[in-house]
């Protein structure tokens, strides 16, 4: 990517500014940095220093200290860690999700986004990014639902649906920053990922979801944040490990984390 003189100057100027954290940086600015091949990130392990790092695939990354405070309000506190660079877009997870949960053809519960990320000047890297409901700790979808048709399970934190209460106002769809919900005309209610609550998760005694079980590259690592022995826990609790969530500036506190490998 060509960075011209003027752009360089802007970055130099910004580096001189005192740190205010990333939450006040408008998305336009963030986007401009990405265009330069740089991303605004926090510093890991509890720091809140503004740093400009190579964008590669850490857009929106923030420090572990900010998105994980060590308090896991649910037990088990389910999570999924996505080992992004391992994804080969075979879509076996998508098929498994659809067949296990009988997902209608009106929509999908999980998807794979293909990204073309600036790597070095003139070079781009292709990355496949699985997305699904983040089972946010502060879920905007739950907050807005007028009839509590969508709710956060008080035991395990899964954001679930009670389809018989859904009036189809679609406010939750408008509120979800991650495009994780759709209206299924067949059941006349919202459908969304529920970590296979009533299917694979139940069958496996809370061990795994259909997508994670189907993934040949072990990209989707399902686990419990209250259990330090699970691989998912370890993936985001190792010193120096870079991990991030999507769109952290919205403060929805996702429970789906991303790591490179």
């Amino acid at each position: 990517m060509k960075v011209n003189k003027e752009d360089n100057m802007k970055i130099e100027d910004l580096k001189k500014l005192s740190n205010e954290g990333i939450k006040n940086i408008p998305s336009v600015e963030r986007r401009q940095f990405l265009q330069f091949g740089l991303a605004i990130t926090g510093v890991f392990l509890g720091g809140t220093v503004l740093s400009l790092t190579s964008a590669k695939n850490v857009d929106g990354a923030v420090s572990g200290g900010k998105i994980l405070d060590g308090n896991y309000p649910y037990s088990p506190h389910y999570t999924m860690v996505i080992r992004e660079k391992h994804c080969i877009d075979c879509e076996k997870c998508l098929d498994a999700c659809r067949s296990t949960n009988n997902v209608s053809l009106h929509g999908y519960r999980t998807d794979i986004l293909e990204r073309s990320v600036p790597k070095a000047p003139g070079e781009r890297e292709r990355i496949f990014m699985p997305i699904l409901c983040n089972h946010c700790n502060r879920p905007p979808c739950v907050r807005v639902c007028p009839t509590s048709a969508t709710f956060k399970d008080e035991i395990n934190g899964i954001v679930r649906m009670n389809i018989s209460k859904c009036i189809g106002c679609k406010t939750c769809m408008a509120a979800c920053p991650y495009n994780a919900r759709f209206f299924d005309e067949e059941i006349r209610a919202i459908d969304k990922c529920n970590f296979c609550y009533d299917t694979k998760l139940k069958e496996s005694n809370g061990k795994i979801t259909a997508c994670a079980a189907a993934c040949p590259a072990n990209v989707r690592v399902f686990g419990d944040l209250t259990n330090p022995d699970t691989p998912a826990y370890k993936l985001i609790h190792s010193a120096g490990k870079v991990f991030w969530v999507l769109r952290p500036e919205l403060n929805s506190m996702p429970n789906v984390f991303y790591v490179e490998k």
Partner: protein
Amino acid sequence: MILEKKIDSKYITFGPQEILFVVLAIISMIGLSFGAHALLVGHDNVFGTSREIPWGILISPYVFFACLSTGLCIVLSLGQIFNIEVFKPIINRTAFLSLVTMATGLMCITLELENPWRVPFFALLSPHPASNIWWKTTIYSLFMIFMVFNLLSLFMKNEKKARIFSIIALLTVTMGNLNMNSDMAILGGRGFWSENYMPLYFLTLSTLTGCAAILLFTWIANKLNKETPTEAENNALRATSRLFLALLVGLLYFTGVKIMGGFYPEFTKNPEAMYLLVQGNFAPNFWIGEVILAVILPILLVLLSRGRNKGMLAIASISCLVGTFTLYYHLVIVGQLIPHYFQFNVVGLPQYYSYTPSLHESMITVGAIFFFLAAFVFGEILFRKINFGK
């Protein structure tokens, strides 16, 4: 035979007003029947909405009519609650219009729901007080009840009682208006209405459209009834036009803030959406609808009319109402057009999502507007028959 003789001829006439009412009602029914069809087959099949754009054009007439009702109630309160003499001659019509505009708004939002029949059960059995949309439905439904009692008391000439209901209705609807903002503002992930000025903006828009509706519909009513307004009515309209002008200047300020946001991202919380509105694909709509029709043209016409030329005031009002309708449409739609993952260099992701209202959505909107017009004419017929208009 004896009974027939007793009925005054004015109760059984079927003149031009009645014909007009039937025509408007038929058009409204045709439009609304598209809503019934959409309910039967499911919105996915006939609406332009999608997973990415879940809220379509029907939210705009809902916001438009609910805010209009609020504005009418505020102007009503000037005469009925605050006893400002000059506004008293327009109390009855304003109260009626406030009621039917709210009914129209609630009808629009009902037809926007996929399962409206579940609302009465689960809004009561499974309420979610943290949800603004739950409050909004509850507040506006209560408002309608208070307004019905207000009208009934006015009809029975019990002004004291009417005033009490009017006070409760005003408090209720103002809460609803403030809630309308927070309802959308928490949808921060989608670049919706989260600007700091929004609560005041909504209140200004509501009162402004309320004034416009009074100027327009009093003029139409005078034409329909072939009446010349009394001096007291003229004074009321002149006072309303002054308020209208002041609010137009207020809206001019807010429009200026929006324009700044469109050109300079630091002036807005939604830079992507504001750019799209002011400089992007929506720019023609914005400049024609929100700037010229909603503000500039009405200001010029009100100034030229000097508050006396009723026809000119009516045109200013139509222009303003059409302009504010486009404004609400933009408020609902533009924020949703910014893709969820726009920062992620996703291959094949459009720069903006797209949305076009479908035939069904457009027809329901037309049906709702004609429902309101039919209700207005019905009100005029009723007022004439029971001698209630003044």
